[in-house]
């Protein structure tokens, strides 16, 4: 269990995914076993399989009891089909008992792991002194290859961090201890209370409560502070407390779906999505021609070629399109960015487009991933989407309009009207801040939970009072809403007795209700 880290959730209780991470499968009503015993507090929840992690979101206390584990830490898996009352289970082995893990060269992911471990901190380019990310093999700024001594020569137990920090002249009173606990390194820096913490990069003495160096923003390695979270780095995460006796956990699937989940997990473990950033940049020897402006031009040209290749590949058939979706989306994004720069559209519509784009690429839950929980997931996704949209729309929008913009935002993997309807009817059950409402005319709208008819009525009344009289179409164009929706709202206001209608050959116009309170004293 101690391999699990806390997972941050969105407001609709879905896990926040890292960059390049995608959801592969979701199964609800799953319990966790720590070894062979049930894990208290993690008995019933939803399990998300992403390309990088397995995430457990508790159904009762999602904010405190939601945890995740990186797939790359999983060394073995076992499948148990279940028997009589015992539910089907998947066992995830972390093979901690094998202390020779680092020497185990037969394991497919060992090379990555040792690389990751030795480079859990950034490395500094020897030429330009730029702090590079650990996965970069060449310096991001000058393109110089990472020095050899930082990679292979470092023994697994001693971190590159040490060599860097000592080389940079860390004060000797500071001792850095490394607990090379299996494949995770929990670095604890003994803090000299009087002096504060010396930055391993720049040796600046920071205040003991600092997490990052004030000068160079490097991580200080003080992980004693509660609540410190770091999503990107596995080794620095917020551990789930409790040492486990066993080196495996089990997922009990009480609601079925185990076979599909297992298949997806196998795929994910074979795909090794987390290795991709490295594998795409093949380590080549440093070539002086690659440096300088010519190098930049070369790489721009190369990028262009790659894009062309992607496009060609992608549109060959639908399967390949699926596999390189991510690249395609990135490409689309960059094209979009370029287009919007060049576009001569008005400021308002440009804003709209950029707003739209921010919502655009996060969407895309599909039936394959979610299975039985598809509509619930869709509802959550929709709720996240509507949070941005509905406030502009005055808290109410017709279902057809939502269908339109939601599918436009998704771009691919469009949803059917029926799926949307089902997802919307789940809002109440999932405790999401939206409600589906059916008007007497049969018009379906989605509105904010906090939305109130009185507010709308007041606003419409004021609008009518200022204009004298209005037709539904006029009001719709003033309020920038659909006519059907405005019609419903006018009807609602009329029912309240605030306005009255005037039917003539020109259609219906609405007036302030002078009739209801009119008193005639007689002649």
């Amino acid at each position, binding site marked *: 269990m101690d391999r699990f880290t806390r997972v941050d959730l969105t407001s609709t209780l879905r896990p926040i995914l890292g960059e390049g991470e995608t959801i592969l499968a979701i199964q609800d009503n799953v319990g966790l076993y720590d070894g062979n015993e049930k894990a208290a507090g993690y008995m019933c929840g939803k399990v998300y399989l992403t390309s990088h992690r397995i995430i457990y979101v508790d159904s009762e206390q999602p904010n405190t009891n939601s945890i995740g584990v990186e797939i790359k830490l999983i060394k073995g898996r076992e499948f148990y089909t279940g028997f009589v009352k015992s539910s089907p289970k998947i066992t995830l082995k972390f093979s901690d008992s094998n202390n020779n893990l680092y020497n185990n060269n037969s394991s497919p992911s060992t090379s990555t792991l040792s690389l990751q471990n030795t480079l859990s901190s950034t490395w500094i380019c020897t030429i330009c002194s730029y702090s590079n990310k650990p996965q970069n093999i060449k310096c991001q700024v000058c393109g110089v290859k990472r020095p050899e001594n930082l990679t292979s020569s470092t023994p697994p137990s001693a971190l590159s961090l040490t060599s860097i920090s000592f080389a940079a002249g860390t004060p000797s009173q500071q001792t850095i201890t490394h607990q090379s606990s299996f494949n995770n390194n929990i670095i604890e820096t003994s803090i000299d209370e009087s002096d504060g913490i010396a930055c391993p990069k720049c040796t600046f003495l920071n205040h003991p409560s600092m997490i990052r160096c004030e000068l160079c923003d490097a991580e200080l390695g003080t992980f004693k502070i509660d609540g410190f979270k770091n999503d990107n780095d596995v080794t620095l995460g917020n551990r789930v407390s409790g040492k486990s006796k066993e080196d495996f956990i089990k997922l009990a699937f009480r609601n079925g779906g185990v076979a599909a989940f297992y298949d997806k997990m196998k795929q994910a473990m074979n795909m090794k999505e987390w290795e991709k950033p490295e594998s795409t940049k093949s380590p080549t020897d440093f070539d002086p021609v690659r440096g300088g402006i010519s190098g930049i031009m070369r790489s721009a040209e190369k990028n262009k070629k790659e894009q062309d290749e992607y496009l060609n590949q992608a549109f060959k058939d639908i399967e390949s399109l699926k596999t390189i979706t991510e690249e395609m989306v990135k490409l689309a994004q960059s094209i979009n960015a370029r287009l919007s720069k060049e576009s001569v559209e008005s400021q308002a519509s440009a804003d709209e487009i950029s707003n739209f784009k921010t919502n655009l690429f996060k969407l895309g839950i599909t039936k394959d991933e979610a299975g039985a929980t598809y509509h619930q997931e869709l509802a959550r996704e929709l709720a996240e989407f509507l949070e941005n949209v509905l406030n502009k729309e005055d808290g109410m929008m017709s279902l057809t309009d939502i269908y339109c913009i939601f599918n436009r935002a998704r771009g691919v993997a469009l949803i059917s009207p029926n799926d949307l309807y089902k997802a919307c009817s789940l809002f109440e059950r999932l405790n999401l801040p939206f409600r589906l409402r059916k008007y007497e005319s049969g018009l379906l709208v989605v509105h904010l939970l906090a939305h109130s008819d009185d507010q709308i009525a007041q606003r419409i009344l004021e609008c009518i009072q200022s204009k004298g*009289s209005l037709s539904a179409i006029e009001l719709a164009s003033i309020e920038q809403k659909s006519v059907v929706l405005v019609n419903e709202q006018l009807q609602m206001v*009329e*029912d309240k*007795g605030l306005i*009255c*209608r*005037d*039917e*003539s050959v020109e259609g219906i*116009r609405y*007036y302030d*209700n*002078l*009739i*209801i*309170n*009119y008193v*005639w004293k*007689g*002649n």
Partner: protein
Amino acid sequence: MENSFSFPSIHNFPPFYTLQPTQTTWQNQAALWSEIILAYYRHHKLYRLELFESLNSELFNFNNNQGIKRRLRLETLQAIIDTMVKRGTAEWESPPKKVSAIIYWRKPEEWANLINNWILETGMSNSIVTVYEIAHGESSEGFEFHGLDQTILMKALDILVKKGVAQIFQGTSTDDMGVKFFGING
């Protein structure tokens, strides 16, 4: 003709000519219409409302200088008179046909009292008066019931007969009918 009837401002309000679907609004709308009709009929001493004809009258039409024209629809007028019938201020002349109505800007009981008081005041107790004399005679001139619609007059007289205040003697026609008042204060 006397000075013209002055309509209230609501009479110039376009939605006033549409049957309001909201119940509370409609109730007040119908009440306002019946008030206007009664006041208008009292002003012009009218008793009968022929629906088709009167829809063209100034009472149910509105024409403002901005070119907005509204006219009450027949169904709306029928609905208004229906509510008046319920309140006892109107009566359909030949139900279930809704083409003509009697408007009671005074109820028959009130007319009966007025006639009886007139008899007592003019000292015509125990003498016989014809129906024509009551409505159109010289002696009733200046009184409110002068020119009273015959149907309403007969209803008022019926009420007096039932009270035992008067007795009707049949004549050759309605106008020849004689009424003997006993001089009792009804």
